[in-house]
């Protein structure tokens, strides 16, 4: 943890010190970004992965899916920036026909390259961009309120691709919006404890469902 803080600190210093004569927005190369990601309701999703649970279960309609992410973005040249993003995901749902509630959380760490569209004269970090991203995902959850019925995913590797746009207001605030497409089922394992097998599959569906297509809006800060 200390190491990460040190790296971030040095990145920040490196970004701020040459800020007068460097690329970026008026020399500001580093910015912090918070994104809120949400999913328009896509129902009855059938996961394509082979889960180690009851294959005859019916799948629930997910009720609400959203996630939060915090990213540190560093402009490397006129049209590109590199970033590291940490994403927190929460989900909940109802398993039918038994009407069993479940909920859970997930964590991501992503590394991305944001390419601002040179032909549209977008100059990092302002304007339209394309963002390929590679992620490591882990999630866990429980059925009802019992801590005994839990499930945990193994580490998953995902690829994402975003199309978005950033705006800057008041010279220091960054507004971000876009749409993200993801593939997260490249490699998947799941560990299920006790009776949790009833909710594990819909939970996985919910997580993956959320990540296939995401809309997001965010706000950031150019120090």
């Amino acid at each position, binding site marked *: 943890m200390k190491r990460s803080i040190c790296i971030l600190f040095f990145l920040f210093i490196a970004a701020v010190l040459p800020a007068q004569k*460097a*690329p970026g*927005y*008026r*020399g500001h190369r580093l910015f912090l970004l918070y994104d809120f990601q949400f999913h328009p309701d896509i129902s009855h999703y059938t996961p394509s992965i082979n889960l180690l649970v009851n294959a005859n279960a019916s799948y629930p309609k997910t009720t609400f899916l959203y996630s939060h992410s915090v990213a540190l973005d560093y402009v490397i040249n*006129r*049209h590109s920036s590199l970033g590291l993003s940490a994403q927190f995901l929460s989900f909940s749902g109802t398993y039918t026909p038994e009407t069993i509630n479940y909920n859970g959380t997930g964590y991501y760490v992503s590394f991305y390259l944001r390419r601002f569209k040179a032909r549209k004269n977008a100059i990092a970090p*302002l304007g339209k961009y394309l963002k390929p991203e590679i992620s490591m995902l882990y999630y866990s959850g429980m059925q009802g309120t019992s801590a005994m019925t839990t499930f945990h995913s193994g580490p998953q590797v995902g690829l994402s691709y975003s199309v978005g746009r950033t705006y*800057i207001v008041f010279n220091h605030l960054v507004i971000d919006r876009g749409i993200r497409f993801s593939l997260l089922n490249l490699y998947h394992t799941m560990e299920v404890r006790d009776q949790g097998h009833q909710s594990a599959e819909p939970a996985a569906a919910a997580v993956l469902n959320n990540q296939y297509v995401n809309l997001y809006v965010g706000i950031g800060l150019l120090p």
Partner: protein
Amino acid sequence: MYNAITRSVSYGNPVSSATVKRYLFRIVFGLFLFLTGFSFAVAQDLTKNYSRLSSSGNLPTFFVENFQTKIKAEGEIIRSKNDSTLREREDFTSENIFDTDRLIRSGNVLFNDSISRYVNRVLDEILKNDVPLRSKLQLFVVKSVSTNAFSFDNGIILINTGLLSQLENEAELAFILCHELVHYRKRHSVNAYLNYVNLTNNSYRKTSNHEAVLNYSRDQETEADTAGLAMFRTTSYDYCAVRSAFDVMQYAYLPFDEQPFPKTFFEDKNLKFPADYFLDKTASIKNEDNYDDSKSTHPNIRKRRSSVLRLLDSTCYNSGRKRFLVSESSFLRSRELARFETCSLYLLNLDYADAIYSAFLLQQRYPDNLFLKKVIAKALYGIAAYKETNYGTHFKNDVFSADSRYELKAYDQVEGYSQQVYYLFHKLSSEEATVLALRYSWKLHTSLDYRDKELAPICDSLFAFLVMAERKGPSDFSTKTRLEVIHDDSLLALTTSHHPASDTASIASNKYERIKAEQRKDGLKTDEPVDLADFTEYAFADLLKDKNFSARFQFFVNRKAEKGSLDNYESYQEKEKDAHRELKNGKALGVNKVVIVEPFYYRVKAEGNQKLDLDGTAKGILELRKTIKEDAAKAGIDYVAIDPQQMTAGETDRYNDFSKINDWFSERLLHGYHAGILASCSEEMKQLAARYGSPYFLWTGVISMHKGSLGSKGTFIYVVLYDVTNETPLFAESRQVHMKDSPAMLHSNFYDIFHQFHQQPRKKKADKAITN
């Protein structure tokens, strides 16, 4: 759309209706519509030299007032008169003031120079009995070769130097001013606009609308002629001037005088043009005064002349009337200055043949005038440069396109004696044009003891053309004069014929050689040079005996041998290799200080007629100036702004500098992607670079469009950075940004631009290897 040209009312040549559709282009390059000249308050000795005209004294109020202030003041006057067309009048007045403001502060308008002072005295004479009207008017002279005059509803009257150069007397000028005064008094501009609005609102038939607009305009012109005559009658000017004023208009397309251009003008004992390089007879002047005027804003000349002369003949007596009331000598002096200025303007417009012919005309009276000699040298250089096709530094991108490439006007489209000049340059090959230019320039350079700073780079550039494009060196030219060669050959032939045994196999037995020897003998007898196809062979015979000439020529040959190419003339292909890296990291120019020339900002409501949003434009220019100031500082760029919109009354010198800068830039734009060609006023730019402490001059501007061809919104950003000391464009981009011109977007782009200026150049691999 109803543009500024039709909003002002002009005296001279009719305005084509096609120009009405070029509004956006006019916005971008409106600054450069009138090309330039300068007047100098101090009297100059034209027998020796000519200094371009410049303004003097304090900047007039109209020059320093903000256009919004002017609009506000005019708006109050309009609103005080309750009228059903109030809104239309306000709209028109606002745009009209904006356009006038742009024109007045373009740097092409002179004030308080000797010509302006004189024409104002003529206006005083006309209105000596109408002081209230005189007090509302401001008359300025515009540096333009166009034979025209304009009046605006806000009391601004403009008269071009091109028109002044063509006049024969003061009375003609007075009649033209009367014509313009009628336009002003009758508010023809705004009435034409109201008529246009009325037609547009009440009819969907655009074709008939267009015709109706032109009919209305022609009626206004006729009224200005006839009512102008009535005003002219109140003066004591000679009525004969009315007739001759129409002659001026009819033949305005010709140079300011007609004299035969002699074949011997460029010739001497070592340079003789082949006979077929000159026309036996130039095309006669066939101008027709009864042309079809149905698509013109003005009636044809015959109709105008007859409508006025009809009134004149029946009622006017000429006794006691004079051609000059203010001053004949001032008129002649002003006209002469305007003619000298015309030579410069032709150079700036790349009208090289006209520049040479005009200088030739003036040389008849001022044979020793250095300015005229330099005009000819520069014009010859320009022609040579453009004859050397596919050569030189080509800076081709979306700003400098191949479309803007210069072409000499076809000689068969030219009438009168000046056709001879066009024909000569049509016949000359690139090598011949270069040799002619170098010979003329070097001889002039020599006569000035090699100290002239304008001629030295011209000669160097011509040497480079010869060495690089024509692959010629000193050894390719004869060191003997034509007559010496003829003499030697003839002696050889004669000697051989006297000793037939010496070489019976060659000369004596060769029929064709014997014929040639006989011809040479004839040449020797008559001393008349023979027309040879390659007349350039002997052109440097005397110059090669000049050590300076030979050494300079050899210097370029050696440099080519050493480097393979000359620094300033390398192909732009080399630079394109770095294009990918530049896209990624931007350019790295290592510039610390720039001179920013009048940044412009336009906000256009692109809803069909692309109207300017004047309030948005006024706010936008303030925002743009602030953005540039902040971002230049952030990027570490120091800058000096030369912006007439921010000048105070005492900054006339800076205004004159601005005018020179605009002249240079206008010419550079006309040169298009030919970056290696020297501009005609390049030395003046070097002096300005020294004065402002930087050779880097930046032209930039923003056009913001709402609902345009870009989609819902978009912004164009133009940036051109020149190193004016070597005339090289270092940075030229027109950015089409698919975003609203928010402060952040402008900051992002201008910081990026200034950052690229300031970044230190990266070392190339080859350089690194050498360093290591």
